[in-house]
């Protein structure tokens, strides 16, 4: 299953990267969210997959001989999910505020006044 998840991770990275480099800052947020999921899944997969056996110690305290899922990546991802949410929420509110202030979600139009003249000449999409 790891090889399939590797493809999923690659797909998420590609989609996230593509959205991150859009001119629209709204699409950028979507890209950020996808990249977050991709990174979490990458850590999870690289820590190896174990079906249906979470890292729990049985009530009697004796570890079973069967392999269980690795707790370390899970601890890392749990932190990452929460932090990722914090960043996403902050970014979302930030771009909403930016949009209200600048009146556009196009990064190339967001210029300060004295930059405006200079940028007009370079508006040609590279």
């Amino acid at each position, binding site marked *: 299953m790891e090889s399939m*998840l590797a493809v999923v991770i690659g797909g998420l990275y*590609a989609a996230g990267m593509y959205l991150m480099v859009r001119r*629209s800052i*709204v699409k950028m947020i979507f890209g950020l969210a996808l990249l977050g999921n991709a990174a979490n899944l*990458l850590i*999870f997969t690289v820590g190896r997959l*174990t079906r249906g056996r979470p890292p729990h110690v049985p009530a009697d305290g004796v570890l079973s001989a069967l392999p269980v899922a690795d707790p370390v990546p899970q601890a890392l991802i*749990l932190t990452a999910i929460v932090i990722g949410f914090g960043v996403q929420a902050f970014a979302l509110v930030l771009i909403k505020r930016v949009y209200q202030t600048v009146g556009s979600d196009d990064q190339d139009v967001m210029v300060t006044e004295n930059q405006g003249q200079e940028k007009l000449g370079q508006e040609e*999409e590279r």
Partner: protein
Amino acid sequence: MLPALLLSIPLGLFAWFALQIGPVATGQLLQVSVPWLPSLGVALSFRLDGLGLLFALLITGIGALVLLYASSYLHDHPHLKRFNGFILAFMAAMLGTVLAGDLITLFIFWELTGLCSFLLIGFDYQQEASRRAAFQALLVTGAGGLALLAGIILLGQSVGSSDLTTILNSGDLLRSHSLYLPILILMLAGAFTKSAQFPFHFWLPGAMAAPTPVSAYLHSATMVKLGIFLMARFSPVLGGTDSWLICLTSVGGLTLLLGAAKAIQRTDLKQILAWTTVSALGMLTLLLGLGTPLATTAAMLLLAVHALYKSSLFLTAGAVDHGSGTRDIRRLGGLGRTMPQVALAAGLAALSMAGMLPLAGFIAKELFYEATLHAPYSPWLITAVAFLGNSLTVAAALLAGYLPFYGTLKDTELHPHQVDLRLWLPPLLPALLGLLIGFFPAAFGRLLLAPAVAQVAGKPVPVELALWHGFNPMLLISVVTLGAGLALFSLRNHFQMQRQSPGWDTEQLYDLLLAGLPRFADMITSYLQNGRLRYYLMIVTGTAVALMAATLFTSSTGTLQLPRPDGSLHEWLTAVIILAGALMATLTDSRLAAVAALGVVGYGVALIYILFGAPDLAMTQFCIETLSIILFVLVLHKLPRFTLLSSTRSRLRDMVIALGVGSVMTMLVWRAVSQPLIPSLSTWFMEQSLPAGHGRNVVNVILVDFRALDTLGEITVLAVAALGVYAMLKPRSGKEGTD
């Protein structure tokens, strides 16, 4: 500052160095060393040997004359005191360089001389030409200094010590070292820029913007000889190879001819002298390149003789300028009547420069020819180059030392007057010294030259100088040289007429480089840092991913073994749903659909967590995903609709980049999961969870117990983010709300 007090510094030093002539001639080596950076093996260390002593005497002796001279020459200059300070600082830097006993000490003083030269060339900083010349000299010698630093570091590492004595004993090690060629090239780059060798020669004539005492001191007698000093200093360990021979003789020969040819086309006294200095530096480089004991002796003699006659000629040029108001030889003439002592000094110096009997220059020229005739390869070609250069030098000597003083004044509007003692004594003394050496060459050779030659050759060399060697081939060539020089001199009007257009020189290359560099930097900056974040992102991510891909491919031990795809249908379906969600989020032009697709991806990932034993993750993911979708929907109606902003071309380019990033990440995971896992950390947590953390859910125990501090940090981050969100959602304050 009292001139006497000021003069006592260089004169005292000169006297002290003069007292060391005896001990050094008997082979003593005076050394002082103070630990500086002991952990790096660097010491502030000085050594006084024959080579250093010869330079030290020139530096302090001519330095004293220049200070005396400047007290009259610049007596009404508002910054005379500043000038004296610069000159003394320069003298200290020079002495530090030639007496250095450690590579790092040598380099630091070397750079200090360049800095002092910058200050002195730009002394008349109100004039643009001065500033430009100062900057040019600083850039050229500074660039060479960087190369020298690299060379010195390589040299020190190859030998394993930065101590000069150790290095000078490691010749065989260095010449067979694999880094020999880089060391040689870097060191020579430093030497060639400092000593104005082709193609870096142009800064020296430019440096004539400095006041004349500076030109006499720095740009003829001392500083420009530092490159020669460097080559001489390291010739026992770096010399003697074919690369050394070819590099030095060709560059030296070219510089010699170029300088001499340019000199006779000039009409400004200082320019003539500057170009002949370039030519003389070429001669010295050529001689050091030949490297035979004879050539080394000739080089050391020429070095001393040149310093004497050239400083004298520069100082007379200044006196002529001071006494008549111009340095243009087309306007001057007959000055011997109004300033006889200056004329005497100039005449003696010019005779020495032309290599006339009985002056020291004659002995130097005879030795020069003897060395070229016994050159290790193509002696006739090298002798021909030397002959041509010397003939031109004879003509230039007549232009500078004869023409302004004899005949009649050509420009009758000039009113030349006698100059005071402080202007004629300083040029006269070195000129007389040239005569003195001519009369007592044996003593000079034994006491001063032999110890220096022994240092440069790396072994004692018998030095027997004599004024008269009898009738031999060298004398014949000398006579022919004089004849050719006189012929060239009589044709001077022809050469000087030709010089209407400045002609091509490597200086234009320098200008081009200087103008091109900021333009290039501008181009790079506007391409890489154009103020658009997404390009920064592409460059940073692209570089990181490209490096990762390179590592993945190059470190591959055999072909990548793809793990066999396995898994049941529901797992595959989950994977497909995630991919479809990501694709949908990317391609849709509806904001709501994109949010929904994002939710699909999030829940899909949560499903993966459930399937593979991570219920805690799944629960968190479900909560967070729900929250963020609510947040998205709340904010989204305040945001604009999706529109197509980019052109098809840039969308295609971004797709290619994105797919590249994705594929490298996929390969990374494949590679990672095909390596064996070392689970010691996980095992430890599993075992310690209950006894140490009193909890059975290991993930939770890690978060709230083993790594509790990290979790506290995480909570803090969330709190800060929440504060930020709150601050931004708050209605704007009245002041901002006016727009």
